């Protein structure tokens, strides 16, 4: 049973570019949440998708958008990249959205130059 998978593992972009990160949830899970983790900080909630809709959003600008597909996989898109967007982007999947049921993927390390 595969856990949460994310791609790519690493990515380098330049300021102003756009990036798309992908996440496949754990088998049987229907909810996907995205988090941004800056170096030395805890993960910060970006948004959560359920039934192909954004259910809840954290304090992130509209440059951050997402999508969930019918097979529950999800994408995170970031437009007009800034240097400060450099971080580890984590995807968490769950059946429901409580604290104990969220399983995290290994993350995508994004570096913006």
């Amino acid at each position, binding site marked *: 049973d595969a856990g949460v998978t994310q791609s790519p593992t690493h990515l380098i972009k330049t300021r102003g570019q756009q990036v798309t990160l992908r996440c496949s949830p754990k088998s049987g899970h229907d909810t996907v949440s995205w988090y941004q983790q800056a170096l030395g900080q*805890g993960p*910060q*909630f970006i948004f959560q998708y359920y039934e192909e809709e954004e259910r809840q959003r954290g304090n992130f600008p509209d440059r951050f958008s997402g999508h969930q597909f019918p097979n529950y996989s999800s994408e995170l898109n970031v437009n007009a990249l800034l240097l400060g967007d450099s971080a580890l982007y984590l995807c968490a999947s769950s*059946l429901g*959205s409580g*604290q104990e049921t*969220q*399983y*995290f993927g*290994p993350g995508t390390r994004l570096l913006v130059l």
Partner: protein
Amino acid sequence: LAKTTQPISMDSYEGQEVNITCSHNNIATNDYITWYQQFPSQGPRFIIQGYKTKVTNEVASLFIPADRKSSTLSLPRVSLSDTAVYYCLVGLPSWSGNTGKLIFGQGTTLQVKP
């Protein structure tokens, strides 16, 4: 959501018991306390969750006093592989119908030495 406060870092030696305390003075009546572990370049991993008194699983124990304003994660006989960041979170569990996000603080970096 209740804010949590943890020590920034802790050091220990292999074989010792480690106790990490988290303060959550504003915890709500229905909130649960959850601990996550994160290794470098990996996503956080659920360790344990509790509401009051003591909870134990194969990995750790969680002690919660009667006033619930703090909690202590206890790791018995740590090894080098327990070196990680440990996060304390407070909020509602999934079975309550919670649709909330996870709120992480800075966590406690535990360094286990040989």
